[in-house]
C-alpha cells in the first residue's frame, strides 16, 4: 500500500512536469534559442576583444564568478558550513585513523605518491585556466582534495595537518569577502570587478575573476580535504 502511494506520487510528479512543459518548445527541440532570455547578454563579446564588460572567454565562468558571483559566495558558504558540520559531528578530541581493512602494498604506495603530484598539478592547472577552458575553482579544488585522498589511501596511518587546512580555508574565504568589499570602495558595488578586463582569451585577463577562482579552488580544496579527513577517522572507544 505504501509503495503504491509512493509510486503514485512519483508518477504524479512526472506527469505534471510533462504537462507543465507542453506549452513551450522544450519537447519539440529541447529548449529554445537564448533569444528573449536574460542570458542573451551574457555572451555579448568576441574573441580577442579588448576590455569588454566581462572578461572570461568561458561564458559560464563569467556568470559564476562575475555576473552572479554572489551566488558563488553563497555556494562556498554552503560547503563551508557543511564541512564545519561534519567536523562537529565526527570530530572529537580522541581520534584515530579509520581502519580501512587493508594495508597498501609497495606498488600502491609508490604509485599513489607519483599520482599525487600529477593530480595536484592538474587541479592547479584547471583552477588557473578556469576563465579560459572548462573547469575552474570547483573541479580544480576537488582535484586538489582528491590528491590528498590518495595520500590517505597510500598510507594507512597518514593524518593531514588539519590546522593548515583551516588556515587556508579561513584566509581564502575572508579574502573573497574582502575582495567583494574592496569592490564597494574601489568601484561602486559589492564584488564589482575593479581591474582591467584585458583581452578575451589571454591567460592574464578578466580582472579579478582568475583571482576569485584561485581563492575558490583553495577553499574548496581545503574544505573537502577536511571533510575527507573527518570521514577517515573514528573515535577511540
Amino acid at each position, binding site marked *: 500500500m*505504501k*509503495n503504491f*502511494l*509512493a*509510486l503514485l*506520487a*512519483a*508518477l504524479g*510528479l*512526472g506527469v505534471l*512536469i*510533462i504537462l507543465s512543459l507542453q506549452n513551450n518548445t*522544450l*519537447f519539440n*527541440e*529541447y*529548449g*529554445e*534559442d*537564448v533569444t528573449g*532570455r*536574460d*542570458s542573451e547578454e*551574457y*555572451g555579448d563579446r*568576441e*574573441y*580577442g576583444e579588448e576590455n569588454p564588460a566581462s572578461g572570461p*572567454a*568561458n*561564458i*559560464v565562468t563569467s*556568470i*559564476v564568478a562575475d555576473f*552572479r558571483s554572489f*551566488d*558563488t559566495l*553563497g*555556494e*562556498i558558504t*554552503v*560547503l563551508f*558550513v*557543511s*564541512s564545519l*558540520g*561534519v567536523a562537529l*559531528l*565526527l570530530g572529537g578530541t580522541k581520534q584515530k585513523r579509520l581502519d580501512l581493512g587493508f594495508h597498501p602494498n609497495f606498488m600502491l604506495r609508490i604509485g599513489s605518491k607519483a599520482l599525487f603530484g600529477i593530480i595536484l598539478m592538474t587541479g592547479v592547472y584547471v583552477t588557473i585556466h578556469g576563465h*579560459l*577552458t*572548462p573547469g575552474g575553482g*570547483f573541479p580544480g579544488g576537488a582535484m586538489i582534495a582528491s590528491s590528498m585522498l590518495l595520500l590517505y589511501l597510500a598510507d594507512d596511518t597518514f593524518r593531514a595537518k588539519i590546522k593548515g587546512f583551516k588556515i587556508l580555508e579561513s584566509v581564502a574565504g575572508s579574502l573573497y569577502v574582502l575582495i567583494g568589499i574592496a569592490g564597494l570602495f574601489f568601484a561602486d558595488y559589492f564584488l564589482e570587478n575593479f581591474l582591467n578586463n584585458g583581452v*578575451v*582569451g589571454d591567460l592574464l585577463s578578466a580582472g579579478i575573476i582568475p583571482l576569485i577562482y584561485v581563492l575558490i579552488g583553495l577553499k*574548496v580544496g581545503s574544505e*573537502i580535504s577536511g*571533510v575527507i579527513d*573527518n*570521514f577517515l577517522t573514528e573515535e577511540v572507544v
Partner: protein
Amino acid sequence: MLQFAAIILLMLGLYGLLTQRNVIKIIISLNILEIGLNLFIISVGYFEGGLAPIFTSETPANPNFVDPLPQALVLTAIVIGVGTTALGLALARKIYQKYGTLNLDEMGEN
C-alpha cells in the same frame, strides 16, 4: 531524449525516498533525484546545434551558444548537493553509533 531520462530519474529518486527504509539508501535516492534535476536544468538550456559557451580562436562570428545560465546554476547545485550528502553521511554514522543499525525499521523509535 535526455530530458525524459532526467524526469524519470527525478521520479525514481522520489519513489526511492518514499519507500526506502535504509539511511544510506535514502541518501542514494536523494543523489539520484539531484542528478535528475541537474540533467533537467541543463536540458532546459540546450538546443540542437548549439555550441558550448566558450570563446576560442575558432569561434565563428555571431556564435550560436547554448544557454550558459542553467550551466552556472547546475555548478552551484552540484556543490550544494555534495555539502548535504556529506552532512547526511556524517549523520548516518552518528545514527549507526547510537542505534547499531542503519535500518529505520530496526531502531524502535520514529
